């Protein structure tokens, strides 16, 4: 006998819903089994916090007087995309401020980019707008400069084309020189292995076949409330899977949106990645409604059961060879070292597990207090393994 999201929402409204985090559900399922756990638990909360380059924000600046059709614009010297309507702009998280040396002095520091700009806006800081235009009959203004804060703009939405990657590569370096990647600094000759996933707490690894997450799923986004609006770019669910259905390669992704004005820089933090560029660390938490035993079995997945591929970032990744050096579990990665080719390699995360836990706890608290109801997906995200009943 399954539950519906509407029934779970009724329980949330009455303050009766049983909400646990993706860490807590592991012990509950071990102790009580999936059938009883599925009856008792209503919602499992997940969380992740890590750099997500495919992020950005739409901002409507409001009209200048006289009016202006913005052709080029900069916020704190970061170029923003203006090819939309007159005063709508899009800030890309990885765009760099003008005059940044980039990688001319290698490895570049990338101290201020779109991600830092978004963090500053969310923190309520004043930023400098500079805009130019060619002038039209209806929009005669040709230049505009002003200081503004998030409170001064009409609308500001975080809108991220690809977030919360379902699993990811473990990056190593087989070459004999240090390399600077989006997976961090990789020392030569397998000197270290960097990974980036919250593993057993990570949203899409807890619903590996997208049985509950779809268009309209309400989520914790950047400290505020957001929504899943589509599958993310590079969404690829036709990948090898473990016995529990979780992908053993990078797989699904989600596209998300939310009101920037309700967010918090603690969960939306500008990152500078040495030798690579700027990015934005995004905090995402997704509630998983326990509709049936299958849902809770998948949500009870443990780091020991989740497998990630080890990939060489000196040749194989940049050249796109597709070669995988081996597979390791998140339990091994979190222990601080992995074994590969007979060598013990220290590991370092880029995804903050402690903040992922904080997000899952916060979302649990919101739901338990009745201030966050589950969104009913209007459509589930594409997933071959679910649609064809492979797993």
């Amino acid at each position: 006998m399954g539950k519906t999201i509407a029934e779970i929402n009724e329980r949330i409204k009455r303050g009766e819903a049983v909400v646990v985090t993706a860490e807590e559900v592991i012990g509950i399922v071990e102790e009580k089994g999936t059938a009883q756990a599925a009856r008792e638990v209503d919602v499992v909360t997940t969380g992740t916090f890590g750099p997500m380059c495919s992020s950005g924000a739409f901002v409507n600046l409001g009209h200048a007087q006289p009016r202006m059709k913005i052709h080029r614009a900069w916020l704190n010297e970061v170029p923003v995309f203006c090819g939309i309507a007159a005063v709508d702009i899009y800030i890309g998280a990885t765009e760099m401020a003008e005059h940044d040396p980039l990688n001319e002095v290698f490895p570049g520091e990338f101290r201020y980019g779109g991600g830092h700009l978004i963090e500053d806006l969310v923190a309520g800081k004043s930023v400098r707008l500079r805009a130019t235009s060619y002038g039209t009959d209806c929009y005669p203004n040709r230049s505009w400069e002003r200081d503004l804060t998030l409170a001064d703009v009409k609308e500001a939405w975080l809108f991220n084309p690809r977030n919360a990657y379902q699993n990811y590569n473990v990056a190593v370096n087989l070459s004999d020189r240090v390399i600077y990647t989006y997976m961090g600094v990789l020392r030569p000759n397998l000197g270290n292995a960097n990974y980036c996933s919250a593993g057993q707490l990570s949203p899409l690894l807890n619903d590996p076949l997208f049985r509950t997450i779809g268009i309209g799923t309400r989520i914790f986004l950047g400290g505020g409330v957001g929504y899943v609006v589509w599958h993310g770019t590079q969404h690829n669910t036709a990948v090898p899977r473990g016995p529990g259905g979780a992908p053993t390669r990078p797989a699904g992704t989600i596209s998300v949106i939310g009101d920037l004005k309700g967010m918090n820089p603690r969960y939306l933090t500008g990152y500078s990645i040495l030798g690579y560029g700027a990015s934005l660390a995004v905090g995402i938490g997704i509630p998983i409604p326990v509709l049936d035993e299958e849902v809770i079995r998948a949500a009870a997945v443990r780091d020991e059961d989740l497998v990630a591929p080890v990939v060489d970032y000196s040749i194989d990744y940049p050249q796109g060879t597709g070669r995988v050096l081996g597979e390791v579990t998140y339990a091994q990665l979190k222990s601080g070292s992995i074994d590969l080719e007979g060598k013990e390699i220290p590991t370092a995360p880029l995804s903050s597990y402690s903040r992922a836990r904080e997000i899952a706890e916060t979302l649990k608290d919101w739901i338990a207090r009745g201030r966050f109801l589950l969104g009913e997906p209007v459509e589930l995200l594409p997933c071959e393994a679910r649609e064809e009943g492979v797993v």
Partner: protein
Amino acid sequence: MVRHKVVLHFPHEQVDKPIVSKLVRDYNLDFNILKASITPREEGLLVLEITGEEADYDRGMEYIRGCGVSVQPLSQDIRRNEERCTHCGACLAVCPTDALSADRTTMEVRFDDEECVACELCVKVCPPRAMEIHY
């Protein structure tokens, strides 16, 4: 025996004088150079780990200060901005002394300034730039 990590700032008029070697010869102290640099304006910076008897160490530092060199404990110099640290762990890959290490239960990153040798590798690697230099 005591072991101290100190940062010495040399004014430009002292940069060319053999001051530190006297610590070995006259004060019976051993030192290990962790970092040395001379800035364009010719002020010198030396980070040392000094080992010896406490009385020798105190006399040696008195001598150094007498030469117009300022002496600061190293632990004050590399600091973590707790507000900015997201506990991601990117620093763990580069820290040579395990001054930065992960608590495997909470997965929070600990910073032990006693173990820090001020190599500064973490400073540029830290994505939110939470590791700061305060020389």
